[in-house]
């Protein structure tokens, strides 16, 4: 058996006999993906709406009928003006639509409970769009790529961008540091095994595990979460493999900088998680950030990966549209791996 194969075998046996790691690595991402895909959503449904009608006309009837038939709203009923305020304050309704007819001209007013700003803003926008349908020049809305505005579409690239960075860098950094803590790393380093072989012996098993994870995540995304399947899935695969290698390299780099497993976990867990969530565009659009933060976000690999994934998975554009992101990720991978290998080889 070659040295390389025996190192891989060692690592695989280690993983198989410590099923906790594998469980965390495979189960946690799936839970996250399903949570964000189903439970957590930025969509606003079932806005509880009250109506205050000054004077009942055909026009107000038609308008209220439209709210009744719209699944985004639950029309709780028509109430008197003084009741509306109380019900809103008691939290029994989310918004009130006040309709007045002055000289044959219908005007409307929207009152919302803005204790939840997101809900209030979205509800107002919905109400306006439904109410303005009655005006003379209706605006025809056409949302490209995600016509139903499903938030699963929005979250899958983000979750994948976060999961691979976290899981891959944690796995490699913790596993390398634990070998250093138990000084089995010293045994490998004093042996005739080349540092290159030691590094590959560490990275290859975790790369294979990450591939398994990638397969799992993509299968779930394209089946359970219902992302539209297209030939671009192939590009998603190689792009993700590049991203995984980058993340493994980051883990290796972390392992050369810290000396305990806890530190490795904290660095790759916390130090990577916060910027990925805040600055990668996973949740908050990069374009809306202050310019300085936009600059910082350019250093975050997840930003490029997530943006490329959106192009491939949701817009399903041809591969030439992700060339800039791919180039940046490839460059980052090269730099990280070179740095990590250099620091790892260093004889102290």
């Amino acid at each position: 058996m070659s040295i390389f194969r025996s190192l891989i075998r060692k690592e695989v046996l280690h993983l198989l006999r410590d099923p906790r790691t594998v469980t965390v690595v495979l189960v946690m991402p799936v839970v996250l993906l399903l949570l964000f895909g189903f439970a957590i959503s930025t969509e606003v449904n079932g806005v509880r709406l009250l109506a205050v009608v000054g004077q009942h006309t055909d026009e107000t009837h038609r308008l209220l009928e439209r709210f009744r038939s719209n699944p985004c709203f639950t029309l709780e009923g028509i109430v008197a003006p003084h009741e509306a305020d109380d019900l809103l304050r008691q939290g029994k309704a989310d918004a009130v639509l006040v309709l007045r007819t002055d000289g044959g001209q219908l005007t409307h007013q929207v009152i919302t409970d803005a204790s939840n700003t997101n809900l209030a803003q979205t509800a107002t926008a919905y109400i306006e769009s439904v109410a303005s349908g009655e005006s003379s020049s209706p605006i025809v809305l056409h949302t490209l790529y995600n016509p139903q505005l499903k938030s699963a579409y929005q979250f899958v690239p983000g979750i994948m961008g976060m999961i691979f960075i976290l899981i891959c860098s944690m796995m490699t950094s913790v596993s390398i540091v634990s070998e250093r803590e138990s000084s089995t790393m010293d045994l490998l380093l004093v042996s005739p095994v080349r540092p290159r072989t030691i590094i590959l012996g560490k990275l290859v098993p975790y790369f294979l595990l990450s591939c398994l994870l990638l397969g799992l995540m993509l299968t779930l995304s394209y089946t359970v979460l219902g992302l539209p399947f297209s030939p671009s899935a192939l590009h998603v695969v190689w792009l993700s493999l590049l991203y995984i290698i980058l993340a493994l390299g980051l883990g290796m780099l972390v392992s050369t900088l810290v000396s305990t497993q806890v530190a490795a976990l904290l660095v790759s867990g916390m130090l990577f998680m916060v910027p990925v969530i805040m600055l990668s565009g996973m949740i908050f659009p990069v374009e809306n950030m202050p310019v300085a933060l936009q600059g910082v976000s350019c250093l975050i690999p997840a930003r490029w990966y997530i943006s490329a994934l959106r192009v491939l998975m949701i817009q399903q554009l041809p591969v030439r549209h992700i060339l800039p992101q791919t180039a940046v990720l490839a460059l980052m991978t090269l730099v990280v791996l070179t740095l990590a290998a250099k620091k790892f080889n260093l004889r102290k």
Partner: protein
Amino acid sequence: MKTSENVISVRHLTKRFGDFTAVDDLSLDVRKGEIFGFLGANGAGKTTAMRMLCGLSRPTSGSGTVAGFDIVRQPEDIKRHIGYMSQKFSLYGQLTVRENLTLFATIYGMPASDIRRKADEACRALGMDGVRDRPVRDLPLGWKQRLAFTAATLHTPDIVFLDEPTGGVDPATRRKFWEMIYRASSEGMTLFVTTHYLDEAEYCHRVSIMVDGRIRALDSPAGLKQQFRAATMDEVFRIVAQDARRT
């Protein structure tokens, strides 16, 4: 013994970390088949010196050979001719006794045809036939220690470096461990041992005592006791190390 060749021969080895001189002008010869005790208080520079000899650490200055290879230019060749057992007990806890032996034998480049036979022989010699398929982490510390020694010597290296191999082990196990060291020495291996236990120093052919990065005394245990007019190695050590600043 005096006439036999030196397997370790270093001159003026120095290792600095920034302003701190961990090892200061170390010159040393170790003969083939010798059990060489490398003593010193905590922080005296023992581990740093040993890491330089193993090719794990590059000396700031100085030169020398280990197993006939230059420690600065040929560390990779040195690695093929040494075994190493580190301070902490270190084998792969999740792997079984036999898997550990096989892994290290492979890593040290033993031919595949020998590995199986040698590993089985070693299990028998250790009295671990019954547990050879059990994960190492379940074994008592003394067993792990003896197993780690076997893993470091299975490929019969020229020199075995042992960094505090008996730390935290009971006296009976230490005794067994030293029997293994003697056996290895009688098979022609050279053993370079650091230890805190001064009774163990008595078992060595020659002993050096390091204080603040420098070797202060070097001779056979009997020679040292005579030189410092002491009854035991314990006393010798206290006399030599009394003015140590780094403790």
